[in-house]
């Protein structure tokens, strides 16, 4: 069992490390990095399902007998690019949260949003923080 | 001829790995930022270059298209890797990263 399934278990471990980072760390940027670790674990798991012993890349060539399955590779190829696009959206949200609350630590954001909702930036926590509330209105 | 090329390829690949290992050790052990990137940059360029040359002279599945691609990769590697080290060193100098003097502790 171990000899045939060890790859899957290691990939599950990588997924779980990513999940642990997402759940336990409070820093939003660290969460995003952890999410991308989890994503990569999923991608590797998908691709490992299509691998054939003694196979080769699915590029048809007269010298090759067996090919690894192309379908998981197609799905994961688009998923990688979509993954970085959603990472960019997450990072954009983190930047806006930082500009509004002056921090990217999740607990701090919750505390500050409870005490002064939509009140703009605390003056002492950003360099040149004034005027960001006005900038926040443009869309 | 076949065995000579195979042996040469093996020697080049081993040399490349040794250089990369030395570079990694230097990256960890040198006392100063500048000496560390010196070790890392040079050893990495030379090491990767030797590995590419070792792959180039392999007689087993040699084809002109693969050889040309390896040479192009080698050319770009030699062009970009030292530039990257240069940028790092200049940025650190501008930023004021201290230079190690004789008698200082490790930094």
């Amino acid at each position, binding site marked *: 069992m171990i000899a045939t399934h060890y790859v899957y278990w290691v990939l599950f471990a990588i997924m779980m490390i990513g999940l642990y980072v997402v759940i336990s760390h409070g820093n939003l940027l660290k969460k995003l990095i952890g999410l991308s670790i989890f994503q990569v674990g999923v991608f590797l798991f998908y691709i490992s399902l299509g691998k054939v012993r003694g196979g080769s890349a*699915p590029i048809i060539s007269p010298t090759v007998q067996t090919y690894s399955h192309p*379908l998981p590779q197609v799905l994961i190829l688009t998923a990688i690019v979509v993954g970085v696009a959603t990472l960019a959206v997450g990072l954009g949200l983190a930047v806006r949260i930082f500009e509004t609350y002056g921090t990217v630590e999740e607990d701090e954001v919750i505390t500050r949003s409870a005490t002064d909702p939509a009140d703009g930036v605390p003056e002492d926590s950003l360099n040149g923080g004034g005027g960001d509330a006005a900038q926040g209105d443009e869309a | 001829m076949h065995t000579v090329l195979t042996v040469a390829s093996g020697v080049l690949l081993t040399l490349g790995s040794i250089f990369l290992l030395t570079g990694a050790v230097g990256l960890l052990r040198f006392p100063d930022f500048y000496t560390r990137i010196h070790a890392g940059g040079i050893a990495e360029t030379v090491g990767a270059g030797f590995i590419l040359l070792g792959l180039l002279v392999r007689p087993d599945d040699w084809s002109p298209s693969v050889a040309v691609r390896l040479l192009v990769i080698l050319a770009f590697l030699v062009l970009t890797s030292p530039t990257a080290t240069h940028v790092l060193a200049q940025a650190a100098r501008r930023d004021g990263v201290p230079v190690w003097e004789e008698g200082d502790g490790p930094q």
Partner: protein
Amino acid sequence: MSTEFTLVAIALLAMLTLTAMIISRLRGLYGAAMVAALFSLLTASLFVLMDAVDVAFTEAAVGVGVSTVLVLTVLALTHSREAVTPRNRRLPAVAVVVAAGGALVYASQDLPAFGSADSPIQTHPITDVYLVESQEDIGIPNVVTEVLASYRGLDTLGELIVVFTAGLTVLSLLGTLAPPEDCKPPGRFHLTDYRVIRIVSGLLMPFILLFALYVLFHGDYGPGGGFQAGVIFASGFVLYGLVFGLDRAQQVVPPRVLWLLVSLGPLVYAGVGVTTMLLGGTFLDYDMLNQGHPESGQHLGILVVETAIGLTVAAVMMTIFFGFASRGVTRK
């Protein structure tokens, strides 16, 4: 599996797990971002080991290049050190992780052995369609490009719309790009003062763009295609923007042109679909593009669609990068 394969796989997987644990422990986020780039590089190697060369290409370009640049840019916009995780968060996280991981391991007992040739996915009739019949229907050696652009072209259109939407979202979150006059680099440190950097990056840029075009058009015969080409094209302009300054980059690629290109990609892709409908077929049925020669119709359809993909991905990546970069400039 042969012993060399197993050894390499074990070594790579061990390094991968170790790197993931290091990323989890690092509190200095600049370091975590760089180790994440290393993580992506190791995954790209693992993809090559598992015969997924197209995917490895994409992961190397996207995960190591674009992803790292974006995270570093955002780290420059926010604080870069993480606070210590309070103890009361760690225990629930460990419990969830152990439960989920245990469930996965328990379920994986039913999975086929790694690399088996008689698993359901390998013996399904669709495998024959993709690997054998596709050569008669389409005739392109790279099966992944065939499946991506032709057999599952509708999926790819959907993914392209997702990338397009992400570009729009970043634009609406971060506002329109600052005008070039405001984007002059701060006076203290200007990369173009250094002749080596200026000359080498000027030398490299045409090669990067040429390579992107090569990857796009050669994607039929080797690893490559629209996604990789778009990312490489965008990284050329990111290099230009980093070295020569955001103002000159915006003069080279004005924002309005960029937005036009972002919209042009999905338009062309969906336009091909509508064209095939007007020519008498179904949506995205490339056989209709060349009546009487379905194979060359497929070739034409795949070429146009891959170009549209490359265009959109490049434009969206450039928009995202310029959006983040000019946010830092206008905030001062």
